[in-house]
């Protein structure tokens, strides 16, 4: 290659200088690392959210631990299991364990309480409650250790089966106890007590003792008590009992608390008695009193339920309703029991069908107390007759045992089966040592007793002479895919609904984890704020970039951008404390203003045209000021019109009209159709009237001045016509019985979507405006020049040339505004009312996903269902914005490709 002298005479440096090369490499590495880092960070957030959310959907776990010989079951007289007459003298009536599953107790019909070590089945103590007669019925109040025992003597006694927990000082315990490994336990005796000593993981010595205290006998009948039920609403105790002769007695007791001694006693405040007749020769088999203390259910074996309202007993017991719990005639009720809260009960029958029932208020009900029982859930059947039932004392889980040794566990609200396991010899044999051999045989024994342990962490069953323990972990049964995204029938609700109500102070609350109201809230907030913010921002951007003089434009743009510097908490604060009460006062004026302001602006623009040409050229720089003058004028006109709107459209009082108390739907439809008919008239005018007018003016039939006047008359006429048109449509719709109240309008609430729409619109305007303005400015000047040069007006150039060319930028401006609106927290938190309702009503509040996370995360117990649900809300928000942004990007790329081709 010959060395050719370059044309300039200076040789060009062909090699990159090292500094440039280094800068190049460094920046490439930095950008690559930064880019990958961003992707990694976003994916990590996603993975982390997933990591917390996934356990929500893991199935519950039920695992066999051990089978122990229960010496105390021997009291049952089942030593020879094949024995025919084992309707023994001392069947187990009730049993329980402490919360650490160290000690258990059984109560038999003689009134003897035997405590035993859960792990070995070895009996510890035996205590005779010294009741005068054999026990016939036992009942307990869920969540309390108190039981009520009724005997053949017709008396009822209160018995508290409480476990006392004590921590022994470590220098006081025996050497044997000190040798325990953490979590291990042993039988331990102190001077005055025998109980279980367990070493905790922190090395303390926890001593558990069973204390049984029996209260005074309360006389109910002379005949034996057959059925008994109790409930404790607030400061009351309700006991209902039925004797073997069919007498039913309900007693309400008020609590008397002695502040000095700290003892409580019950004082009878009200009672009623009724004799229940036999049905098909039999007396009722179940008796249930609700936790609220307002209803009593008397249930026969064939499924008939008679409901009594027992709130006021002075009028005696009058049946309020009769309902058949069993649709199938051949089945019989085998078990009826309340789940936690004593509101919902589960009816299990001999065919293995399970249904939940609770009472709801229904104004149309034929019952005197306007309440009726409904069956809300049907559970997957067990397949064979249900023989045992146990409800959890801390969640809405219940377990049933059936005839064929099967244990099934259900979640009452969602209706799902959490676990199901056969207590068969096989499964037991596999897990226990082979020593038990074939002693258990192939026989499947019915499960006679079942107990979910107090902490929901275990399950204990008695089947015949077998005492089997399971470990249980329900995980997060309240949250299933169905319960989150589908309406559910919650307790005491009239129908299936989407509800978000995550927590309360008491345990027996039914948690309602429906995410739909929150997603709906996010969408509603976004919709209303975009409706207000997006057109304003886009039109402002078009106006400033296409019509405003450059000198003004450089002043306007930073001013609008300054709006973005207002922190959203300040906006929210102003919205909640200043704006919301103000809007409530002047709402009809604001509605009038929504129509008056644009009309005044148009009128102003029209008046400007009336100014003779030489003057208008001289005054051109004051045009903006002149148009700005229209705003206060429009506002004062709307202030004047406000009361008129109130009277004409809203029958005199807008708040009452919105509430549906007065007026008809006509006014609402009128307002809804007014913008539509304006648009319609605009189309008619530009399609048919304008070309006609243009043609006349071209043919010089009309002078310029005349044209302007005719144009003005056209505007006025079209305005009147559109008013008439929408009024006619409104009348028509109203005549069909349609009412917009309840759909788009409704009761006015001070903190509502309109307020949030205004304020959040204010927050997103600067963002949309800036990006849109930049996008318009980026449109090549030659396009504008060509269009203007070809004779198009400024308006035509802006609308037909510049805006289409800038579509991709405008679109991304909108999408970024949308993204901001979806994720915005503070404004909606403070001004949105935070009511998780699903309602399009502009004048009602809402709760968004983001505000919900902000409100509830501090209270959520770590790794609880609630905590994970909040993460699911965050994940939903993430996915929502991800989808919005992806769509935005795809559309933007498509538009850009088209523009590049220009």
């Amino acid at each position, binding site marked *: 290659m010959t060395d050719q002298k370059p044309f300039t005479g200076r040789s060009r440096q062909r090699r990159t200088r090292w500094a440039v090369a280094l800068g190049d490499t460094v920046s490439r590495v930095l950008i690559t690392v930064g880019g990958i880092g961003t992707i990694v960070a976003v994916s990590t957030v996603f993975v982390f959210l997933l990591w917390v959310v996934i356990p929500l959907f893991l199935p519950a776990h039920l695992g066999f631990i051990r089978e122990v010989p229960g010496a105390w079951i021997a009291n049952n007289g089942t030593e020879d299991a094949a024995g025919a007459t084992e309707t023994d003298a001392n069947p187990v009536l009730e049993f329980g364990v402490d919360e650490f599953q160290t000690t258990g107790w059984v109560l038999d019909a003689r009134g003897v309480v035997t405590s035993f070590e859960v792990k070995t089945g070895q009996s510890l103590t035996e205590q005779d409650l010294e009741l005068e007669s054999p026990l016939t019925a036992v009942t307990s109040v869920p969540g309390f250790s108190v039981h009520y025992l009724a005997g053949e003597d017709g008396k009822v006694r209160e018995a508290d089966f409480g476990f006392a927990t004590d921590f022994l000082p470590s220098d006081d315990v025996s050497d044997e106890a000190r040798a325990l490994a953490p979590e291990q336990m042993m039988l331990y005796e102190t001077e005055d*007590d025998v109980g279980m000593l367990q070493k905790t993981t922190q090395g303390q010595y926890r001593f558990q003792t069973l204390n049984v205290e029996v209260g005074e006998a309360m006389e109910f009948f002379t005949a034996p008590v057959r059925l008994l039920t109790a409930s404790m609403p607030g400061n009351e105790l309700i006991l209902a009992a039925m004797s073997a002769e069919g007498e039913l007695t309900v007693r309400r007791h008020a609590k008397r608390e002695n502040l000095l001694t700290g003892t409580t006693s019950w004082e009878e405040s009200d009672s009623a008695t009724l004799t229940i007749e036999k049905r098909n020769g039999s007396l009722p088999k179940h008796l249930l009193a609700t936790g609220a203390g307002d209803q009593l259910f008397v249930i026969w074996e064939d499924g008939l339920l008679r409901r009594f309202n027992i709130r006021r007993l002075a009028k005696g017991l009058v049946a309020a309703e009769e309902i058949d719990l069993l649709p199938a005639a051949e089945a019989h009720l085998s078990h009826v029991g309340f789940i936690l809260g004593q509101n919902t009960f589960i009816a299990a029958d001999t065919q293995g069908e399970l249904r939940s029932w609770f009472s709801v208020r229904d104004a149309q009900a034929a019952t005197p107390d306007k309440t009726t029982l409904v069956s809300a859930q049907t559970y997957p059947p067990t397949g064979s007759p249900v023989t045992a039932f146990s409800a959890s004392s801390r969640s809405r889980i219940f377990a049933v045992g059936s005839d064929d040794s099967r244990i099934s566990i259900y979640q009452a609200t969602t209706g799902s089966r959490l676990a199901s396991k056969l207590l068969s010899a096989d499964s037991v044999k596999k897990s226990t040592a082979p020593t038990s051999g074939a002693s258990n045989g192939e026989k499947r024994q019915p499960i006679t007793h079942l107990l979910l342990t107090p902490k929901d962490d275990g399950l204990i069953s008695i089947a015949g002479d077998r005492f089997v323990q399971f470990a249980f972990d329900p995980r997060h049964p309240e949250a299933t895919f169905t319960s989150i995204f589908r309406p559910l029938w919650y307790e005491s609700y009239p129908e299936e609904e989407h509800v978000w109500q995550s927590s309360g102070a*008491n345990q027996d609350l039914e948690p309602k984890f429906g995410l739909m109201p929150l997603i709906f809230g996010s969408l509603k907030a976004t919709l209303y704020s975009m409706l207000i913010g997006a057109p304003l921002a886009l039109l402002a951007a078009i106006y400033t970039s296409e019509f405003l003089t450059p000198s003004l434009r450089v002043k306007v743009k930073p001013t609008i951008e300054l709006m973005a510097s207002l922190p959203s*908490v300040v906006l929210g604060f102003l919205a909640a404390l200043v704006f919301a*009460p103000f809007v409530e006062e002047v709402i009809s004026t604001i509605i009038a203003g929504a129509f008056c302001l644009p009309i005044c602006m148009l009128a102003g623009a029209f008046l400007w045209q009336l100014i003779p040409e030489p003057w208008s050229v001289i005054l051109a720089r004051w045009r903006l000021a002149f148009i700005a003058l229209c705003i206060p004028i429009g506002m004062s006109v709307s202030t004047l019109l406000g009361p008129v709107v109130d009277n004409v459209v809203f029958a005199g009082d807008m708040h009452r009209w919105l509430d549906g108390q007065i007026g008809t739907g006509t006014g609402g439809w009128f307002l809804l159709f007014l913008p539509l008919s304006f648009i319609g008239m605009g189309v008619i005018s530009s399609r048919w009237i304008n070309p006609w007018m243009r043609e006349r003016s071209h043919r010089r039939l009309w002078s310029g001045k005349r044209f302007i006047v005719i144009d003005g008359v056209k505007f006025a006429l079209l305005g009147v016509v559109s008013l008439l048109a929408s009024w006619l449509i409104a009348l028509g719709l109203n005549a069909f019985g349609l009412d917009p109240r309840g759909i788009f309008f409704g009761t006015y609430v001070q903190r509502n979507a309109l307020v949030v729409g205004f304020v959040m619109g204010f927050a997103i305007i600067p963002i949309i405006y800036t990006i849109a303005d930049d996008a318009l400015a980026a449109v090549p000047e030659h396009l504008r020049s060509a269009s203007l040069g070809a004779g198009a007006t400024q308006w035509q150039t802006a609308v037909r040339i510049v805006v289409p060319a800038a579509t991709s930028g405008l679109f991304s401006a909108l999408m970024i505004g949308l993204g901001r609106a979806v994720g915005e927290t503070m404004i909606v938190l403070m001004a949105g009312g935070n009511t998780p309702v699903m309602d399009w009503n502009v004048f009602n509040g809402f709760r968004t996903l983001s505000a919900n996370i902000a409100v509830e995360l*501090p209270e959520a117990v770590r790794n609880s269902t609630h905590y994970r649900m909040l993460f699911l809300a965050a994940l939903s928000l993430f996915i929502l914005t991800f989808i919005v942004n992806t769509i935005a990007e795809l559309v933007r790329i498509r538009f850009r490709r088209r523009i590049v081709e220009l």
Partner: protein
Amino acid sequence: MTATLRMLGIGLLVVGWMWGTSEVSGQVVVDPNLPTYKPATGVSGTIKSVGSDTMNNLMTIWAEGFNKFYPNVKVEIEGKGSATAPTALIEGTALFGPMSRDWKKDEIDAFQKKFGYEPVTVATSIDLLAVYVNKDNPIEGMSLPQVDAIFSKNRNLGYADDLSMWGELGLKGDWANAPISLYGRNSASGTYGYFKEHALGKGDFKDSVKEQAGSSAVIQAVTADKFAIGYSGIGYRTADVRALPLSNKEGGEFIEPESENAYNGTYPLARGLILSVNYKPNSKLDPLRREFLKYVFSKQGQQGVVKDGYIPVTAAVAEKALSRVGIAAGAVKKKTKTKK
């Protein structure tokens, strides 16, 4: 997010102050048998408290009084709701957990899982959970079933009809057709839980209850909204709102939310304001916590309670409370059970 919430809290507090001055009921006197607090030596460190918003001001008053004795003790108080107290105690981020409700079972479980024993809660004062209306509201009083019918969709207390208009409560004129505007607390709050359990009979709040992040926000909303009704602790009462007298039953006598009605047990919504502490059984509390608790249950501490508008406890209750954390007349409680 915590930062923003705190900002919100501060903002609302400021507004709370701007809006009204708290009314101190003068006639409440503390039990003269309460001990006068005397400072001890060796007290230093930071008092960190996380929990109830109802007790926020009360904790501040105590901490200020305590600081007078021990100027080098630092104080950090956060009040975002009772539900935040257990979490903070379990994580060890707080020494004290002020709460306006009892611990829930799963909270105790979580605590027990970590420490082996249960948390100790001591009742420091009495709050009357009051139902507030705007000061211009002419209503005389309400029965609990009516309150239930206003706030709850279930009406578990048995009121026959739903109440959504002031007219349905017998108000005339302007009020007759005005819808009742409902304000309440967010579900993290113990006040929310207590109200739900005792005033709504465990029923559900209506969807239209506007949840506010703090007690002062509720009062502020009731001040600004003429047709509003809300509930909050009595300590947040201002001159711009009225705490309604309540009756237990329909047609019963209206009981004013005043201290004498708290002591005689007639006011239906009286509750204890508690402090939760992580106290290991049979151990000795560290000087900081011991002295603070002694201060709370002293004459000065209980005067602080009165200053904040709540109701002080008696000397007997104070002594019992202190004995539960091993402070009995200055000595550690002796073990209760001995080895055989």
